[in-house]
């Protein structure tokens, strides 16, 4: 037994130490050397999750349920594995839009709805005030135990009068602490560095204290883990604690508890406060991802040994296991250890109370009181220049109110079931936020009504299946409805709703409330499309990581505003100095020297609204801002348009990239085309040069001989005749060349005239061979003609085809060896084509020349013996044949002659006309 004075002084000393830590933290924060800006502090502050309910209650649970205390800590471990997906996004959203509470988060997400914020606040208050009461109770009963105010079973005996109850003073002291460090000033970010430092400190204290007790029990009272467990095994009752079944639970219940804890570690107001609102640096979450679970593991290692130790030493049912942490040292004469254990419990309780109260007071102020104040038109129009004092007063009042509510509940509930079981009941309450929160972060379709319906439905079922039964079990309500159902309807039995059995009450309640919550949320949400406001908020939340790529918040605002309206408005809630500072910073980022020069555009309005949102909540900020600016409400269509525009901008930049790529490709193509043109130009130049050469060569002879004849009268007659002959033949060559060049040019430019008629190629070939007969006779060459009986008529230009034939024949005549030349001309048809072959026994064409002989001025053969020719005959023939859709080519092997062949396609239906022609001939 310890003296009350000692305990009170130690407690006060501890709280003073806490004040010192918090004060130090705030000082350092003001100096810009934050001590909480490191991942260790952040992770430790998250351990506010471990309250007195963990500190004392885990042992209690383990004493009756064995390993069943564990899901409460396994859940957070699993949940934090996903923190980089879920919590990081929450932090980013909260920071970006200055969201300071869960209520604000949900209200803001669903179109800045006051109603929604209010509902969330009420659920949070109802769900967690009893939890605060539980903390007060822990402190109170711990104190009573230490000073000996307990019965034989170590149950504390409460002081009779409220005013004599030390718990009240502890509550008030905590309220003072919370007011001092929780509402030091109104900050747009609502961060409390000193408070966080104190919480992290408390986490260390409670862990050290608990481990000290654990070590004492395990190694002081027993001979290590093995000893405790071996002794427990010997006891048939205790051995049952080592299996899930023996401890009276199902795997389903285990899963439900894990899930519940996983949700709670995110959605408990105090957890949201430390994890999201108080986060200084997103990177800190990284270490917390494993350090926080590791903390949970450490604080749980000794839970079962302490529980078993207590049960073994005291005997079952003799002492309330919830007090083992205190009673085991106390009974075994370790007063100081008991005092340390009490301080640990105190730290677990106060940490929870402080953070929870701050979180709740923010909600109460921003989402319950402010909306009501805003409804008073007097308040809205009040000329009162500075409302910061009022706001702070509201916050402080809310803190006091929450703590007193907790205290009252503690006094009323006492030892009732409703208080003992509140831990999990509270978890189940905050789990109701999960669908609206998570849905809002990942699903654009959620609407205000959907969130309202989901929250209301879930809350209603939670109340009916968990809260009311707990009241009934506490004797505050007639337990009849528990036994027989509401109005005696069996299917309305709260713990077997619709006859659902086989689940423990928590799993049962979680299932029904979540089913109702998620069901209503989704079903009501999909009843209608989101409004413009909802759609824009949905985009801002869901796409928070894509900001900059998608629409900016400011782009969802249309209207007009005045800086002279906005600045005073913000100043009213933040104070003139802070408002001026904020606006000056904003002006600097906009590159404007003075606030008055700021353009009151959508960006500034959004900035002002965000500033206000930090102080009074997003919904109230919306109302306040809209009271001083002229705005045009955006319909869904317009929001969709803006979103479209944003995606269009993205698409546009995408298109720009595409276009620049296309331009690059076009440039390359142009370059290629240009090179082609240059090449063509060069070819044309070459052609011109070639034509010039070909023209000048005969001209040279003509001029030379003409001048010689003209200048020299002494030239004899025979010489004269010879020279004149040369002149005549060169003139003919020149004429031929000019004609062919013109011909070529006409065909190439497409200006040639084609007089198509039906031609009988047999006649044409015969005619051509007849025309060139003299030529071959001169060369002493024999021509062999091979014609079929009849060929289909060909639709083509008669004269042109004759030109081709003459060209090929005269070509052959030129190259056959003099005196022994043999030329074979063959006409065949088949496969819808007519084919003509002209084969000679000349020197042949080397393969390298075969390709170029169809080019202009590229005559084949040895030029020494080059026959008269312009070098245009074959190119022109080729052009003509190709004009009629045919092909002209040469096959040759050197020394064995060359065969020029061409095919011409017959027009469809030509076969019949061929038959007709044949008949006519017959």
């Amino acid at each position: 037994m310890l003296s009350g004075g000692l305990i009170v002084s130690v407690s006060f000393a501890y709280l003073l130490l806490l004040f010192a830590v918090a004060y130090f933290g705030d000082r350092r924060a003001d100096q810009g050397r934050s001590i909480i800006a490191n991942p260790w502090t952040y992770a430790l502050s998250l351990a506010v999750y471990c309250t007195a309910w963990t500190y004392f209650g885990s042992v209690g649970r383990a004493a009756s349920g064995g390993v069943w205390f564990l899901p409460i800590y396994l859940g957070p471990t699993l949940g934090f594995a996903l923190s980089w997906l879920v919590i990081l996004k929450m932090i980013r959203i909260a920071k970006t839009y200055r969201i300071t509470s869960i209520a604000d988060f949900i209200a803001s997400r669903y179109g800045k709805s006051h109603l929604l914020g209010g509902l969330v606040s009420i659920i949070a208050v109802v769900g967690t005030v009893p939890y605060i009461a539980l903390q007060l109770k822990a402190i109170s009963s711990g104190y009573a135990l230490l000073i000996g105010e307990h019965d034989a079973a170590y149950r504390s005996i409460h002081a009779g009068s409220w005013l004599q109850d030390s718990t009240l003073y502890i509550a008030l002291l905590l309220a003072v602490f919370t007011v001092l460090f929780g509402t030091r000033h109104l900050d747009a970010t609502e961060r409390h560095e000193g408070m966080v430092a104190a919480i992290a400190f408390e986490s260390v204290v409670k862990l050290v204290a608990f481990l000290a007790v654990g070590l004492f029990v395990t190694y002081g009272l027993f001979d290590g883990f093995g000893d405790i467990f071996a002794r427990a095994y010997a006891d048939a009752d205790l051995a049952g604690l080592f299996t899930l079944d023996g401890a009276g639970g199902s795997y389903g219940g285990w899963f439900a508890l894990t899930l519940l804890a996983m949700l709670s570690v995110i959605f408990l107001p105090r957890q949201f406060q430390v994890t999201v609102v108080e986060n200084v640096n997103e990177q800190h979450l990284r270490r917390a991802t494993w350090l926080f679970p590791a903390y949970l593991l450490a604080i749980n290692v000794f839970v079962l040994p302490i529980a078993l130790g207590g049960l073994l030493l005291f005997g079952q049912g003799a002492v309330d296991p919830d007090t083992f942490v205190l009673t085991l040292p106390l009974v075994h004469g370790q007063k100081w250890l008991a005092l340390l254990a009490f301080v640990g419990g105190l730290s677990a309780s106060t940490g929870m109370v402080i953070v929870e109260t701050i979180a709740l007071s923010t909600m109460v102020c921003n989402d319950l009181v402010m909306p009501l104040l805003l409804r008073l038109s007097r308040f809205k129009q009040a000329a009162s220049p500075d409302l910061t004092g009022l706001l702070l007063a509201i916050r402080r009042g809310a803190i006091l109110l929450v703590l007193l509510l907790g205290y009252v509940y503690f006094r009323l509930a006492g030892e009732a079931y409703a208080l003992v079981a509140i831990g999990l009941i509270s978890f189940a309450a905050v789990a109701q936020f999960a669908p609206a929160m998570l849905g809002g972060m990942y699903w654009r379709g959620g609407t205000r009504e959907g969130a309202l319906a989901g929250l209301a439905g879930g809350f209603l079922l939670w109340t009916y299946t968990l809260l009311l039964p707990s009241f009934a079990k506490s004797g505050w309500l007639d337990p009849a409805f528990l036994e027989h159902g509401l109005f005696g309807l069996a299917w309305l039995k709260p713990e077997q709703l619709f006859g659902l059995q086989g689940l423990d009450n928590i799993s049962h309640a979680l299932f029904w409330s979540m089913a109702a919550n998620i069901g209503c949320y989704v079903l009501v949400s999909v009843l209608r499309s989101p409004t413009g406001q909802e759609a824009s908020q949905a985009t801002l939340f869901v796409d928070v990581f894509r900001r900059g790529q998608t629409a900016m918040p400011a782009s969802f605002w249309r209207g007009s505003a005045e800086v002279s309206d906005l600045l005073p408005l913000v100043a009213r809630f933040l104070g003139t100095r802070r408002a001026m500072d904020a606006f000056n910073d904003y002006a600097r980022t906009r590159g404007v020297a003075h606030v008055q020069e700021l353009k009151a555009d959508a960006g500034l309005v959004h900035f002002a609204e965000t500033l206000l949102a930090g102080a009074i909540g997003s919904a109230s900020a919306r109302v306040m801002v809209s009271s001083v600016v002229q705005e045009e409400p955006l319909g869904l269509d317009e929001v969709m348009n803006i979103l479209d525009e944003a995606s269009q901008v993205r698409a546009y930049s995408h298109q720009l990239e595409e276009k620049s790529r296309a331009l690059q490709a076009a440039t390359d193509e142009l370059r290629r085309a240009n090179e082609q043109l240059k090449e063509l130009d060069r070819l044309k130049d070459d052609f011109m040069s070639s034509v010039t050469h070909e023209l000048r060569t005969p001209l040279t002879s003509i001029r030379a001989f003409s001048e010689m004849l003209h200048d020299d009268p002494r030239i004899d007659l025979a010489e004269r005749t010879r020279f004149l002959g040369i002149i005549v033949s060169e003139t003919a060559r020149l004429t031929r060349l000019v004609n062919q060049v013109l011909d070529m040019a006409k065909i190439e430019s497409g200006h040639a005239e084609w007089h198509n008629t039906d031609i009988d190629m047999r006649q044409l070939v015969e005619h051509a061979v007849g025309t060139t007969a003299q030529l071959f006779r001169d060369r002493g060459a024999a021509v062999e003609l091979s014609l079929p009986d009849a060929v289909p008529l060909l639709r083509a230009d008669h004269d042109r085809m004759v030109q081709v034939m003459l060209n090929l024949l005269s070509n052959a005549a030129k190259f056959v060896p003099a005196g022994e030349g043999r030329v074979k001309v063959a006409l065949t048809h088949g496969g819808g084509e007519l084919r003509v072959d002209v084969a000679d026994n000349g020197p042949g064409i080397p393969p390298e020349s075969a390709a170029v002989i169809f080019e202009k001025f590229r005559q084949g053969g040895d030029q020494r013996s080059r026959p008269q020719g312009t070098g245009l005959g074959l190119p022109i023939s080729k052009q003509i044949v190709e004009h009629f859709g045919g092909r002209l080519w040469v096959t040759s092997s050197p020394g064995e002659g060359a065969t020029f062949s061409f095919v011409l396609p017959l027009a469809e239906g030509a076969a019949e006309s061929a038959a007709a022609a044949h008949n006519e001939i017959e």
Partner: protein
Amino acid sequence: MRRGLAGQRLVAAFLAGTLLFNYPVLSLFDRLETAFGLPLLYVYVFAAWAVLIALIAWVVERGAR
């Protein structure tokens, strides 16, 4: 890290943890036996828990570099 390899590893760790701490894997150890003189279930849960935390720590601290 959100979308990177570490993010995927964390999701994998979450799934592994969910598997390890639930039926049916849990039922394998839900027997009245001892390991190292300690209850099997107790040893299993704490061992799996520690391994999972170590795994997560390895993933996130590695990603921090």
